[in-house]
């Protein structure tokens, strides 16, 4: 900065502080965040300390009771299971999504756009309809069992639908594009000369992949992980439809509090704890990432 000629020394305030124009541009977003993030979160927080009345309304008092209940082993076990399923889904998505994303990113521009379109096409159909399609595939006299039976791979139809396997299949299917797209974003920017340099320095394909390609695409993997893990942990439609609503996930439990059990305060308390956990994980990951960078 000291080398800057004196002629460019403008009033320092202008360049640093956002003017009213910047605020005007930001206003829609700020209002949006206020109305749909800050206010609902505040309502959730207030409700979580209230009590349920006879019809399922909310009585405004102050109680810790809902938070006591959240830490009941029943709900903790469900929590752990949800984390496990979401984690498994994320890992499978990385393993399946990484090669796809990498391949797309390395393809020619024209081919790349075609392939990206293929990744997005499923979004043109409603998520629920696609989930029902999976039911048709996995059910006992469904397409998959029919194929395997006719090819004599199996003699008895497999009981796939309404099992944890079906839930994971459904979750991976639903969230795979959210892993592919961010990794593609990172891989596309990957500088080929760095990989060539790695080879020149004697790294084999495995070494070049693990020491050069993976670290450089890490931001994509991290973004994908967040995009897959967070929605997967709260998902309730797939566990209901493909898992037969047999083993509740935390998303089902919360949904149940707001509908069947009509215990909004308890549902709110579960939601608050859920959000705190995410915020905490995120902060930890961020600070670790920051330390890594320095």
């Amino acid at each position, binding site marked *: 900065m000291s080398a800057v000629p004196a002629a460019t020394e403008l009033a320092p305030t202008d360049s640093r502080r956002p003017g009213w124009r910047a605020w005007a541009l930001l206003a829609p977003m700020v209002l949006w965040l206020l109305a749909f993030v800050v206010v609902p979160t505040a309502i959730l927080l207030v409700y979580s300390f209230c009590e349920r009345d006879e*019809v*399922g309304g909310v009585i405004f008092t102050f109680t810790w009771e809902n938070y006591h209940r959240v830490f009941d082993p029943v709900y903790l076990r469900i929590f752990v299971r949800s984390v496990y399923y979401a984690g498994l889904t994320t890992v499978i998505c990385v393993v399946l999504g990484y090669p796809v994303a990498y391949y797309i990113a390395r393809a020619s521009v024209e081919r790349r756009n075609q392939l990206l379109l293929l990744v997005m096409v499923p979004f043109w159909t409603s998520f629920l309809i696609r989930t029902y399609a999976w039911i048709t595939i996995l059910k006992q006299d*469904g397409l998959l069992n029919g194929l395997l039976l006719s090819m004599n791979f199996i003699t008895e139809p497999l009981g796939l639908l309404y099992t944890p396997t079906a839930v994971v299949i459904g979750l991976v299917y639903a969230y795979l594009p959210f892993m592919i797209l961010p990794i593609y974003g990172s891989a596309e920017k990957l500088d080929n000369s760095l990989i060539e340099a790695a080879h020149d320095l004697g790294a084999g394909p495995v070494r070049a992949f693990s020491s050069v390609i993976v670290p450089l695409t890490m931001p994509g993997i991290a973004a994908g992980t967040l995009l897959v893990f967070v929605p997967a942990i709260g998902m309730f439609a797939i566990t209901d439809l493909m898992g*037969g*609503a*047999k083993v509740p996930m935390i998303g089902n439990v919360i949904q149940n509090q707001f509908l*069947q*059990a009509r*215990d909004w305060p308890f549902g709110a308390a579960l939601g608050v704890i859920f959000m705190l956990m995410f915020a905490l994980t995120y902060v930890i990951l961020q600070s670790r990432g920051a330390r890594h960078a320095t």
Partner: protein
Amino acid sequence: MKAIKTLILTLVASFAATALHAAGELNLFGWSEYVPQDVLEGFTKETGIKVNFETYASNEELLSKLVAGGGNYDLIQPSEYAAELMIRRKMLAPLDKAKLPNLKNLDPELKGQVHDPEDNFTVPYMSGTVGIVVNTEVVKTPIKGYKDVFQAKFKDRLVVLNDNRELVTWALYSLGLPINEINPAALAKARPVVAEWVKLVKVFDSDSPKTALLNGDVDLGIVWSGEAAILWNENKKFQYVLPAEGAHRFIDILAIPANAPHKAEAHAFINYILRPEVSKIVSENFPYTNPNLGARQLLTAEQLANPASYPPAGAKLQTFRDIGKAAADIDKLVTDLKSAQ
């Protein structure tokens, strides 16, 4: 899931309807898959009253919305126990019976039920039971009650309603306990029974339990009688059995919320539904037990012979009563047992 589908259909339908210059409006809040589109269109065509139709998937959802103060609904469709609670909380408007001459078509047996002893607030829409469906091509042993369904040999061959209170009710029936006295002692007795049962179930589904049976994923189910009736229409191998220990009978009703803005239109709609030829359309689409004796005369012999729609007399049937906060205890019990697997 169904609710979402129906909601989309409803939105499309209501956009189409705004094109008409209607004489009035009616905000109907009903069950998903329970009011045929033909009935709504017929009513609008005849009266010029536009129907805005919104749906819910459970009584609890209906109560949640009403308690939260959402929506200006003119007509709702709660089941008897939810109606009982609403009457007690003064959430329903009294009916003007002078505007409902077609009440005469109703089965007197459904009048004066415990939820509304004077019939001042509610009109039965459809009634039904919760019973057992057996795929008799696969299951050869006789199935008479809950204990026959929940046997170890049927593990992973069962579909039951995804409804915590129903599940606990069946357990109470099988123990010979009263189904409407939900207290810690009763729940403690029901707990081990439910714990064994949830391990055997393959699918919990309230929206469309018939799907798992039709797909061949399960062989037995405890489902709404209307679902069983549709299965029987598809294939006679699906037999409906009312559990010997006793069964839950539900009465879905029409009622007007106390703060409804269009009460006159709501009365017009109730009276329209009570016409035999209109009520018959409901039966054709949703084969529950039609409380409208005039409509029953218009049904075919086959429709009346459907054992799920019109079960033989003499079964032990009971309606639900409102249980207040005990609903939360039931929810915790079942969530606990389901997740313990």
